[in-house]
């Protein structure tokens, strides 16, 4: 499955290996992993999502990447629920005959995930919990791909 929402840990190394093995003929594979950083007093992360919409939105972003870029395949994995520091939050991988397309498609998927997928992060610390604020940068990054 090329789009998966997961409520427990996954193994990015194994996912990269499986994705690469299934991408016969691709000369270039790019991956991106986002990881829970232990900033400040943060001890865990809680990710809320919109079950009826999330998978549909991720699949639509994946299709858009396959349409815009010369890539043969793309993978999107995203956790929800409680995560510990050091755990992988999400992973995208792209496969192409050409390195430029593989890089661009991964970059594009990240920009979409950051501001168009119905997921919300909350940082849990010793002194309470705080919703992560969206960054203006993320909107600006997305504007790069508007056509």
């Amino acid at each position: 499955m090329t789009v998966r929402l997961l409520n427990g840990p996954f193994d990015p190394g194994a996912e990269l290996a499986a994705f690469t093995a299934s991408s016969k003929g691709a000369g270039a594979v790019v991956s991106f992993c986002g990881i829970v950083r232990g900033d400040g007093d943060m001890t865990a992360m809680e990710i809320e999502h919109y079950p009826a919409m999330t998978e549909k939105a991720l699949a639509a972003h994946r299709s858009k990447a396959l349409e815009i870029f010369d890539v043969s395949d793309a993978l999107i994995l995203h956790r929800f629920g409680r995560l510990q520091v050091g755990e992988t939050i999400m992973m995208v991988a792209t496969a192409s005959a050409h390195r430029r397309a593989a890089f661009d498609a991964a970059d594009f998927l990240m920009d979409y995930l950051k501001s168009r997928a119905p997921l919300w992060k909350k940082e849990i610390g010793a002194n309470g919990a705080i919703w992560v604020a969206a960054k203006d940068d993320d909107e600006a990054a997305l504007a790069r791909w508007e056509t």
Partner: protein
Amino acid sequence: MIDVLYFAWLRERIGLAGEKVETRAATVADLVDELRAREERYAMAFEDVSAVRVALDQELADFSAPLDGVREVAFFPPMTGG
């Protein structure tokens, strides 16, 4: 009757993950005005609508979008996935 869903801090401020709403609001903005008029917790949640996003039947939409035929309206903060 439409299903109205709330996520992240909107859910926390309103104290509900979702509810059925009887409304004749023509647009999202009209629905927001109706909700705001209900109770203080709604007024607070929708105080700054520039910080609120909306999806109609699981598709991102604008506040000016019509509610005609819509079955599910979801309100949430700017997304922070990735």
